[in-house]
């Protein structure tokens, strides 16, 4: 069985859905970060596979950019998480809410 573009795209879709479900369901901020990373990588897989399919390098370049941005985002994000944890003693979103809508 050869691995075709469809397989890659299905994998990408499954990963994205997992990430989305994590973003919706998870209450822990750290876990939210993990979920977003999964979604970013799902997008990367789609980019790279389509790029190789149509013989255009720009998709793969874009994937590299996304990896770089994800890395810096995590660096900043984790720093913020530490600060939040220091201040509130928790990363649970339900407990971090201060507005009473």
């Amino acid at each position: 069985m050869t691995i075709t573009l469809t397989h890659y795209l299905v994998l990408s879709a499954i990963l994205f859905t997992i990430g989305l479900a994590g973003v919706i369901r998870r209450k822990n901020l750290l876990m939210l970060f993990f979920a977003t990373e999964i979604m970013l990588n799902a997008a990367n897989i789609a980019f790279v596979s389509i790029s190789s399919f149509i013989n255009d390098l720009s998709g793969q370049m874009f994937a590299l950019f996304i990896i770089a941005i994800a890395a810096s985002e995590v660096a900043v994000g984790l720093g913020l998480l530490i600060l939040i944890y220091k201040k509130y003693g928790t990363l649970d979103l339900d407990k971090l809410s201060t507005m009473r809508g």
Partner: protein
Amino acid sequence: MEKYLYIALFAPFVSSLFSALFAQQKKMQFVGIVAPILIGISLMSSLLLLSHVHESGEAVRANLMDWIVVGDMNITFGFAVDQVTAVMMVVVTTVSTVVHIYSNYYMDHDISFNRFFSYLSAFVFSMMILVMSDNFLGLFIGWEGVGVCSWLLIGFWYHKKDESKDVNPSVSPSWAANEAFIVNRIADLGMLVGIFLIYWNLGTLTYTEVFAQLGTLDHTLLVWIGITLFIGAMGKSAQFPLHTWLTDAMEGPTPVSALIHAATMVTAGVYLVIRANPLYSQIPEVSYGIALLGTFVAIFAASMALVNRDLKRIVAYSTLSQLGYMFAAAGLGAYWIALFHLAAHAFFKALLFLGAGNVMHAMHDELDIFKMGGLKKKMFWSFLMMGLASLALAGIYPLAGFFSKDAILEAAFNEHTYGIWFVLWLTAGLTAFYSFRQVFIVFLGDERYHEIGAHPHEAKPYALWAMSVLAVLAVIFGWFREDFMEFITKFLPAYEMSEHTHHMVWILTIVTTAIAVTGILVAFFKYSKKLNRSEKTENSFAYKLLYNQYYIPHFYEKAITKPYAELSEIAWQELDMKVVDATVDGIAKTIESSGDVSRRAQDGNLSSYLKWMTAGFVLITIIAVISVVIK
């Protein structure tokens, strides 16, 4: 001469503004000095204008400014002083000056002394606009102006408790002020319609132009104009059926009653009919109706005065009755006689009211004449002047009322309207009776005032001196009847008596004087020794009918005021609350409740925001997919 015209017009205005500067402050004596001086200046200018008009025979005209200039419409703020206006101006300013001086005495202890002068002068200014304007719109402005001032002054003691007629038959000042204003409002609508009709058909409102073009209009239209204008006159001059406000207006301070509700403002209706004489002489049927109504009001009001016990209301009824005389004369085409009676009436009626003011002061604001009596000893001069005024009112030779009222009776006889003549003749007898009933009950007989603990005292000398001017005029004014006629008929149509009437004049005079003297004698024998009251008369149906003013106020209360209030209540509860308010509230409530629901989306929880974000993302994706598929 234009200069004097402006001085006469604006001196009262300056007086009003000057007094208004201190309106909120406690009594300042100089206000009471400056105001009469300014009104006196207006009087002087009016006299100069009168003599100028008398000598030249020409009207003085002045154009203050273009007022309304829209398209073809051009209405100027113009003034014209012709013979009629000059007479009115002198009458108004004379009485005003006297009343301004007198008010110093009457309002002496009132906390709103300055405010009173401001209103009073504002009234004079409005009245001057009314009589001096050379077009109907200016007249209307003055007309409304005097209405507002009348409202302000009737309700001058607005702080007195507001009670409806059910609770307190003598009503409160604010109630009376509103009644006067609203009744006049109704009548003014009629007048406005008349003015609109004139403008619509002639395209101008200036008297001279309007009257010159009257011939171009058809008769029905003239009748309508005549009727609608007269409705306005009926309101201002308190003719039946719009008469109830005048007696209630007596709640105002007495100088106000003297100036506004006897001498000047209420005669504005008569002035309007005299002013519009070219119109009314072309519609004899309406004129005859006016004469009939005037005659009816004359006896109608006199009959109510017969039994009334309220010092001021008796005089108010006699004002009504005399206004009826004036309308009768004007309706019969004797315009100059109507104006002559207007002037004579202004003098003696103002005097009568000021005398009543003295009595009120002496009796500590008691108005029931049955509680007075024997005041002659303490207040001789007031007695003398009120007696003189009553003699003039009764039409006794040689006082002013004799000449003017006699002329009206002669005119009625001359027109062969013997019914009108008879009723007016009978009214002359009633007039003599009720005015002297009042004078005798108040000033002669036993001293009943001890029972209410009053300590009567005569008015201050300067008040009496001011009144004496009116007293002199009330005596001598009639002597100038021929001069007056000669002067005024240069402008107003002359009224010729027929040969037959000329022969009858002396009989008529004797008959009229006889009934007047009879009235006085009856009053004298009945009331001069002591107050004769019989239970039987006072419980009779006729007495009660008259005492309750023919139950007309009750009828208005039941048939108009109450149903109207109930209708308003229904409109408020059913229409306003359930339709208008409900719609507006409904919109507001929908928005509020939708906000209440959507507010929960913004709960500050990042997790739920993310859910909303995902939901939005999914929604947009679905829409995008669907739109692609549809394409």
